[in-house]
C-alpha cells in the first residue's frame, strides 16, 4: 500500500553519523555529490563507493535498506543504462551487433559507469534522510539559507512550510487510504478500466481529500495564530543546532577523500591504466 514508501524515511539512532550537525551533513552530502561527478574513472569511483559503505557501517543502518532505497528508482537506472548502451558510438567495430542495434565497447563502459554513479548518488542521498530527522533537516536548511534574508528571501517561512508539509505526509496518506476504502464500499471501481475511466474514478477520492486538507490547513493556521505565531523574528528554538569538533573532523575527512579522488583522476590516465 501507500505506506510502504521508504525513500525519505528517517531511522532514529545514536551513531556518530546520526549525531553530526545536520547543517554539516547537508554540506557533506553536497560534497559527496561533487565527488561522484568529479570521479572520471572506475578507480576514483570505487574510492567514493567504498567511502560511502564505510559511512553506512558507522551509521548502524542495515545494508538491506540500501536495496530498498534503490527499488523505487530502478526504472530510471535501467533507462539510463540502456540509453547509454545503445546510443554511444565507439571507434572500432561493435562488440554485439544484430538488426539495427550495435553495441560498442565504449557504450558498455559508459553505461556501467553511469549506472554505478547513479546508484552511489541515491545511496548517498538516502543516508542523509535515513540518519537525519525531517525537523533537523529543515532547521539546517533554514540555517544554511539564512544569508538570503538580506535580499528579503522568506527563509523561515519556507522552512516552516517544509516542516508542515513533511509532518502531514503520513496523515494525508492515512486519510487517502480511508477515503478510498469508504468509496470502494460504495462500489467505486478504482483499479480497472482505461486511463480516462481511472482518472474519473479518482474524483470521489480527490475531492474529499482536498476538502479535508484545506480544513486541516485552516485549523492549523488558526491554532498557530492562537499561540501568537507571527513568523521567525525573535523566535528561539528548543533544539539548537550545535557544531563541534566531530563535524569539522568529518569535513576534513571528506575533503581528504575528495582530494584523493581528484588525484586518482589525474594520475591513473598518466600511469596509463
Amino acid at each position, binding site marked *: 500500500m501507500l505506506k510502504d514508501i521508504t525513500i525519505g524515511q528517517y531511522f532514529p539512532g545514536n551513531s556518530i553519523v546520526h549525531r553530526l550537525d545536520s547543517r554539516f551533513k547537508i554540506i557533506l552530502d553536497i560534497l559527496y555529490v561533487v565527488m561522484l561527478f568529479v570521479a572520471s574513472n572506475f578507480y576514483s569511483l570505487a574510492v567514493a563507493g567504498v567511502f560511502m559503505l564505510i559511512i553506512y557501517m558507522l551509521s548502524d543502518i542495515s545494508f538491506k535498506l540500501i536495496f530498498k532505497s534503490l527499488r523505487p528508482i530502478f526504472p530510471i537506472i535501467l533507462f539510463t543504462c540502456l540509453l547509454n548502451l545503445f546510443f554511444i558510438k565507439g571507434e572500432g567495430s561493435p562488440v554485439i551487433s544484430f538488426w539495427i542495434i550495435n553495441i560498442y565497447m565504449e557504450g558498455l563502459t559508459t553505461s556501467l559507469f553511469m549506472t554505478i554513479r547513479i546508484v552511489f548518488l541515491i545511496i548517498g542521498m538516502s543516508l542523509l534522510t535515513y540518519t537525519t530527522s525531517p525537523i533537523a533537516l529543515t532547521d539546517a536548511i533554514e540555517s544554511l539559507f539564512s544569508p538570503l534574508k538580506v535580499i528579503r528571501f522568506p527563509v523561515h517561512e519556507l522552512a516552516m512550510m517544509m516542516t508542515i508539509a513533511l509532518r502531514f505526509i503520513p496523515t494525508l496518506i492515512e*486519510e487517502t487510504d*480511508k*477515503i478510498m*476504502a*469508504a*468509496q*470502494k*464500499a*460504495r*462500489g*467505486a*471501481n478504482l483499479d480497472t478500466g482505461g486511463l480516462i475511466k481511472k482518472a474519473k474514478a479518482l*474524483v*470521489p477520492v480527490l*475531492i*474529499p481529500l482536498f*476538502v*479535508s486538507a484545506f480544513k486541516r490547513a485552516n485549523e492549523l493556521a488558526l491554532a498557530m495564530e492562537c499561540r501568537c505565531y507571527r513568523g521567525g523574528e525573535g523566535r528561539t528554538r528548543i533544539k539548537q543546532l550545535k557544531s563541534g569538533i566531530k563535524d569539522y573532523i568529518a569535513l576534513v575527512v571528506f575533503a581528504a577523500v575528495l582530494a584523493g579522488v581528484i588525484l586518482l583522476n589525474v594520475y591513473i590516465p598518466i600511469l596509463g591504466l
Partner: protein
Amino acid sequence: MNVIELKNVSYKYSAGTPFEHTAVDNVSVEIKKGEFCGIIGHTGSGKSTLIQHLNGLIKPTSGEVLIDGKNIWSKDVNIRDIRFKVGLVFQYSEHQLFEETVYKDIAYGPTNMGLDKEEIDSRVRQAAEDMGLKEELLERSPFDLSGGQKRRVALAGVMAMKPEILILDEPAAGLDPVGREKVLTKISDYHEKYGTTILLVSHSMEDIVKYSKTVLVMNKGKLFCHEDTDSVFSRQEEILGIGLDVPQITKIIIRLRELGINLGNDIYTIDRAKERILNYLK
C-alpha cells in the same frame, strides 16, 4: 439462518516484515439474519479490521468469510457484488461526501450498481426519507449542511444500495446529543422497517444496551464473546476486567452493591434500575 459466518479468520498487518502485527486472531463467529448486533472492544482490539473483512475490503491472512453461506473469496464471486450486499459505513462517514448535491451523493452507490434512472431516483428519495432528510435538502451542496445532517447523508448513501447487511462503525461519534439520538433512532427504525441485519460498532455502552439484541465483544484481536445483550452485561466484572466500560447506571448499581445494597447484577438500563430501586425502598 446465518447470513454472516466467519471461520477461523486471522489478519496480520505488514505480514513478513518486522512490523508484523496480528489485528484479528482466529475469530469464528456467526450472525443470524435480521440480527441487530452491537460490537464493542477497546481501541485497537480489531473491531474496525474485523468489519472490513465482511465486505471484502480486507482479505483475511487465513480463514474464511462466508456471506449467505458462500465464501466471498471464491473465484466465482464478484467482490463488488458483495460490497453492494454488505453496506459498510465508516467512522466519520461525512468525510466521504464529494458530489455537488446531496441527491447526487446518495445516488453514487446505486449508480455504481448500474441501476436505471427511475430505480435510482426512488431509492435516493426513500433513503433520504428513512434518514429524516427533507426533500429540499436534496438539491443543496452536502458541504453546506450541519454535522449531523452530513452524517445522515453519508448513511443514506449506503442505505440507498439496499444492502442486506448494514455495518456501521461509530455512526454517532462526534455528534451532539440531539444529533446522536436522531442518527441512532433512524438506524433503529430502518432495522424495524426492512429487517436488515445490522452490526453496530460503538464505544457507548448506553447505545449498545438500548439498540442491540446481541453483543459481540472483541479483546486484543480475539473474540471475547458473542451473546445476548442481557447475558453479556450480567458479566460486568469480566467486561470491566478487559478494560471495557459498562453503562453508567450499572456502575452506580455496582457501587451500591459494594456499599451493601444488592439490587441484582442484570441492571443496565435506567428503567430497570428505577424499578429495582423502588422495590428495594418498599
